[in-house]
């Protein structure tokens, strides 16, 4: 079993619902985001826009796991890479080693509250009890591992049953995100990857990410022979850290 995600670039409408859902699910401090969006435009008179919803790729050969000096970052049997914040020493080697830049160091200035110095919301108070974020440690997307584990314990199927599926996937109104077992050839993710030629970001690093993209127009390969080359160099139009 290896949990994975497919992002359909042709469906994403840049609504940021995945980003918001993740913040609510994990009570994320204001200064950090686990999933992020980038929208890019190519072409001249009839531009094509592709929006990439990116997050930790849960790589099979994860550089962050290899470099972690304390064993805080580990890869589970189901392929999810997790960070044990009680073990993390905050050396940030994993952040530097991640070629996808999908890890964040939680420093004090990133956890100043939603209304710094004015009021602590009930949401924040609940978050302090339910989902502790430790300043001085590293954070990243964990595919909502708590939901998956709890769902499996109830006999639910992640990617099919909402209760066992990552919050961003449940929330996406455009159904651009699909979750499931990459090792199961009959799963929806495997079918999408197979039929729509799913690709991973920067395969040249040999990290074998568990997040795939389909229907992309740009950035699919470094090799100009196989790349869908844009008419002009891409320009970023997306915002939102």
């Amino acid at each position: 079993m290896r949990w994975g995600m497919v992002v359909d670039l042709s469906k994403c409408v840049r609504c940021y619902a995945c980003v918001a859902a993740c913040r609510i699910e994990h009570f994320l401090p204001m200064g950090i985001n686990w999933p992020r969006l980038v929208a890019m435009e190519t072409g001249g008179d009839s531009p094509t826009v592709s929006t990439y919803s990116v997050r930790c790729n849960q790589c099979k050969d994860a550089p962050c796991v290899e470099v972690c000096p304390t064993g805080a970052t580990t890869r589970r049997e189901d392929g999810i890479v997790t960070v044990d914040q009680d073990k993390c020493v905050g050396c940030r080697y994993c952040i530097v080693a991640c070629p996808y830049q999908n890890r964040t160091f939680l420093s004090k200035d990133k956890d100043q509250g939603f209304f710094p110095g004015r009021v602590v919301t009930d949401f924040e108070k609940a978050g302090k009890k339910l989902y502790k974020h430790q300043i001085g440690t590293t954070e990243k997307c964990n595919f909502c591992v708590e939901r998956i584990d709890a769902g499996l314990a109830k006999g639910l199927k992640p990617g099919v049953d909402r209760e066992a599926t990552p919050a961003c996937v449940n929330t996406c109104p455009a159904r651009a995100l699909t979750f499931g077992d990459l090792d199961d050839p009959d799963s929806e993710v495997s079918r999408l990857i197979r039929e729509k030629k799913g690709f991973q970001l920067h395969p040249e690093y040999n990290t074998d990410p568990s997040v795939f993209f389909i229907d992309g127009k740009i950035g699919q390969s470094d090799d100009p022979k196989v790349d869908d080359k844009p008419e002009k160099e891409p320009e970023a139009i997306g915002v939102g850290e």
Partner: protein
Amino acid sequence: MEAHQWMVNYTRQTEWIDRRGIFLWIAFYAGGLGGGLYLVSLYFNSLWGMLVSWLIIAVIKGGTHLVYLGKPLRFWRIITRPQTSWLARGFIFVMLFVIFGAIQMMLTHWLPDSALEIAFKTLAGIMAFAVALYTGIILKNIKGVPFWNSTLLPILFILCGLLGGFGLSVVIALNGGDINLAAAETGSRWLLLANVLLIGIYLWRASVKEGTSKQSVLEQLRGNSAPIFWIGIVLLGIVIPLGIALAGMIANDMSTIVLVIGVVCEIIGGLALRYVVLKAGAYKPLVAKPQ
């Protein structure tokens, strides 16, 4: 639009150089300098040099690296897991050097030329070499930053550390320490030349390797890091020490103050080299071709 430049453009790493990353920069340099000085001190059998190198590694290197950690009180987790990564091994090298070096200096003081002293000199020497080397290996192993991903980097860091070590040994010799001044000067000159050669080769190889590492080189030569590269590394780290070395060879006698200025310039050059290497480390754009 600024917020996502890291996704669509070359972006440099920031964690290990910006803000508190400055501590890591100092730690990395101090490791090289301390390790280099200890090896040079072993060559000259200089107890003063060994003491200074021990202080550099134990206090500056160890201290700044601990201060950099987000959770410094958990550092014991690092030293109990040597199998995990070179960062863990590096912490262990530092700790062992501090222990072996302290025992060795006591033995040198009270039991000179004993078999035990030689044994601890060997052990501390191996650890000093490892301390000077491991920071280069840490960077070399990061595939996502092509500019660092070169076997030349650990060699460059070792040579730079030895150069700083010879420089400090000159200062120790000038202050009446147990080091031969002429030999220290000669060693310093040769290492300076070797460093110049290696920096040139390193930059050339990085510039022809692939696009992102070429961008890192351009960042140093023409970008925001250019003043530090040209003033810190080239002028202070190479031209002035080389000029002083040549003048010393011609005049056969140099004033103490000029020699000390040369050493200070060498140290600044070494610091600048580490700074620029860390600062220029860049990632490929995540989803787009570079602009």
